[in-house]
């Protein structure tokens, strides 16, 4: 039985004893100094105003403040807090400020010697006792390409019990998430819109880890990375006390900056004053970047990998030999029964592996592909009954942890400079891309075959007239190229919109808004090489076109290799413009990147183009750096 937590004043006293700077009464100077300190500003979630020298809190909830103008006056809030935590207890002790704001109470008392009204915070202590936390682990759910709102990954905190005996079980540990409280019926588009402009309240919630594993690992098929933080027990206690303060309080949720990752960073800042993780956040807080920050600040004691069920299924199938794989596919599809001679004639260990891999695959397909229950359930039952008769056969081991973690991949902001030739003119180009990854960036730490670009801007300076032109602005560009095989048949798809230069019949290159999409398949050709065939559709809008817009169905056939040193892509793209000016546009292209570590790449491309009965050869050579 771990010790039950003592009332909040205990660690207040502990901290008091540990610091030397104690004032008996708060002089105005001392008060001003404390009110301006990073620790107090962090506790109140105060941030400097964009205009003026004041501070405003990000909490959007009047109950979070004790002073009337507490949300914009840190000093008044500090004074009000001091008054409240020294006030005599009347009524329900759980309503007293010492119980409502135990983290503020502890921090203030570590700097000021104040009267200590005795108060028994039963609600807080019961809650903290139930959470029974010795260590805090930040869990990162890797990105999941098939859902735009998840592509940056997701983070939450897990509260780990003391590792004392065999009864420690992390699946039963609790987790803290900060999330948008979206109505379930909101569509993805509405969700994205309100997420960006701040239409959702953000809520801090606690759930058992096994439920998070179920959602992320089993249903969404996202690998989980667990980063155990090296917080001391006092720091953990202070974090929990602050979580108690902000529970059920509203902080409006914003996708890009004040998102799931952001509020957790604030909790760490409170736990260890001076960490100032929030100072890293500028315009956006991408969860994988926030993991980089906690690693850089030496906050991580240990890292554990928890593969998703899809990763485990793939691994189980890969560890079968080719005969076993065939048999597994045949059982899963109902061509071979579990008790058929073909299965029964296998050795015990081989049978165990086939049954295990097949069961995992059938469950995965039922979840992901809606296999009907009247087929999948009896099959699942037969597989497990047969498996339970094999004693002492170990199951297939877990997949190996990837050599490169998500947070060890290249940084997400990219700047590129280069020079090239359009077939008619020479230019130099500057390319900026705030996020996130494309197929020819260093692949380590990212999903193979996945591309996600945000707000990429390419600007050219043409050498003949010193003319500056925007060549391309990608609003959002996504490609998802997952290979198909005997077991998995995912659709490859791509979508992109923005503006780009488009050549008109008279040879002028006009900047036009565009929308393009495509769907098809990707296949593995030996190790490290993929072939893809995509049917595409393009839309361009311009007043320079005869009908104001044009549409082009087309195909894209290519080969892709993503390697740690070299990434290459080559293929043909063919489109037929059919509305304003009927003509073909064909390109044969070769693009390559030479990766110099994970911070730099040399990028080259060569293209032969046929457009409006003209043939042109284009090339570009450039250098890219990742920040």
């Amino acid at each position, binding site marked *: 039985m771990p010790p039950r937590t003592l009332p909040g004043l205990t660690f207040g006293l502990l901290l008091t004893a540990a610091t030397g700077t104690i004032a008996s009464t708060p002089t105005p100077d001392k008060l001003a100094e404390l009110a301006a300190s990073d620790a107090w500003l962090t506790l109140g979630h105060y941030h400097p105003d964009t205009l003026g020298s004041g501070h405003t809190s990000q909490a959007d909830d009047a109950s979070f403040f004790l002073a009337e103008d507490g949300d914009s006056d840190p000093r008044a809030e500090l004074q009000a807090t001091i008054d409240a935590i020294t006030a005599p207890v009347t009524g329900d002790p759980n309503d007293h400020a010492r119980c409502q704001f135990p983290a503020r109470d502890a921090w203030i008392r570590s700097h000021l010697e104040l009267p200590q009204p005795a108060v028994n915070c039963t609600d807080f202590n019961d809650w903290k006792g*139930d959470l029974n936390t010795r260590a805090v682990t930040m869990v990162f759910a890797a990105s999941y390409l098939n859902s735009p*709102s998840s592509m940056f990954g997701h983070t939450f905190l897990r509260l780990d019990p003391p590792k004392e*005996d065999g009864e420690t079980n992390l699946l039963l540990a609790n987790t803290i998430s900060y999330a948008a409280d*979206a109505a379930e019926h909101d569509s993805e588009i509405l969700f994205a819109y309100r997420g960006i402009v701040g239409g959702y309240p953000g809520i801090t919630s606690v759930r*058992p880890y096994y439920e998070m594993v179920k959602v992320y690992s089993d249903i969404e098929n996202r690998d989980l990375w667990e980063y155990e933080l090296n917080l001391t027990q006092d720091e953990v206690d202070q974090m929990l006390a602050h979580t108690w303060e902000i529970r059920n309080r509203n902080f409006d949720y914003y996708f890009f900056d004040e998102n799931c990752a952001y509020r957790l960073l604030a909790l760490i800042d409170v736990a260890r004053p001076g960490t100032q993780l929030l100072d890293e956040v500028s315009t956006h807080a991408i969860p994988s970047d926030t993991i980089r920050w906690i690693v850089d600040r030496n906050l991580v004691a240990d890292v554990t990998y928890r593969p998703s069920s899809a990763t485990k299924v793939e691994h189980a199938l890969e560890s079968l030999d080719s005969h076993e794989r065939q048999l597994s596919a045949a059982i899963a599809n109902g061509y071979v029964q579990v008790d058929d001679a073909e299965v029964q004639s296998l050795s015990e260990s081989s049978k165990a592996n086939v049954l295990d891999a097949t*069961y995992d695959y059938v469950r995965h397909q039922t*979840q992901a592909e809606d296999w009907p229950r009247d087929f999948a359930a009896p099959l*699942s039952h037969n597989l497990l009954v047969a498996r339970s008769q094999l004693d002492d056969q170990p199951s297939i081991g877990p997949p190996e942890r990837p050599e490169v973690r998500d947070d060890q991949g290249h940084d997400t902001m990219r700047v590129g400079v280069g020079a090239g030739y359009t077939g008619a003119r020479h230019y130099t180009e500057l390319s900026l891309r705030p996020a996130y990854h494309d197929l020819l960036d260093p692949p380590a730490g990212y999903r193979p075959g996945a591309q996600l670009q945000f707000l990429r801007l390419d600007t050219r300076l043409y050498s003949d007239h010193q003319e500056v032109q925007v060549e391309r602005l990608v609003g959002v560009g996504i490609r998802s190229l997952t290979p198909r095989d005997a077991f998995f048949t995912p659709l490859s798809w791509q979508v992109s919109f923005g503006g780009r230069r488009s050549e008109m019949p008279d040879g002028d290159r006009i900047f036009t808004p565009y929308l393009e999409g495509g769907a098809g398949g990707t296949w593995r050709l030996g190790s490290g090489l993929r072939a893809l065939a995509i049917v595409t559709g393009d839309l361009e809008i311009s007043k320079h076109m005869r009908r104001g817009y044009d549409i082009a169905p087309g195909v894209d056939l290519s080969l892709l290799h993503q390697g740690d040193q070299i990434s290459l892509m080559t293929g043909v793209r063919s489109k037929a413009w059919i509305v304003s000016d009927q003509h073909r546009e064909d390109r044969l292209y070769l693009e390559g990147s030479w990766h110099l570590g994970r911070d730099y790449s040399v990028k080259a491309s060569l293209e032969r183009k046929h457009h409006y009965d003209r043939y042109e050869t284009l090339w570009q050579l450039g250098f890219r750096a990742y920040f």
Partner: protein
Amino acid sequence: MKKLIAGAILLGASSMAFAQPGCGVGAMVWKGQSGIAPHVLAATTNGIFGNQTFGMTTGTLGCQTNESVQSMAMYMDSNIDKVARDMSRGSGENLETLAVLLGVDEADRGEFSRLLQDNFASVFPNADTTSDQAVDAIVTLLEKNERLSKYVA
């Protein structure tokens, strides 16, 4: 410790959309697509878990009176496919979790796993078994076992 774990797991209970596990209801094993559309789940990424916050009530769990068994019923209800899998293999994280919830000592865990693996077909007699039927069968098995009966007493 056991009590704390039970408390922690019951803490998560109110977020589950079923009535009273351990009461003859329970989830059907291998029930297929959970009925949650993928795009709704996608929203959970940045998370729609909003409403289940700290002050959760544990509800009244009527039927199984043993708190450990209640916790096990709760866990099995939401993880039944994985529990069945680990049970058929005689090892795995979810089987470990059952042992922890029942408070099975480490020395008895081998016996616990073996018993459940050997009797898999009686715990899950058919493809329509519900988690509560499985819980009842497990309790019956343990009661009959000399070494393990103390954990469900």
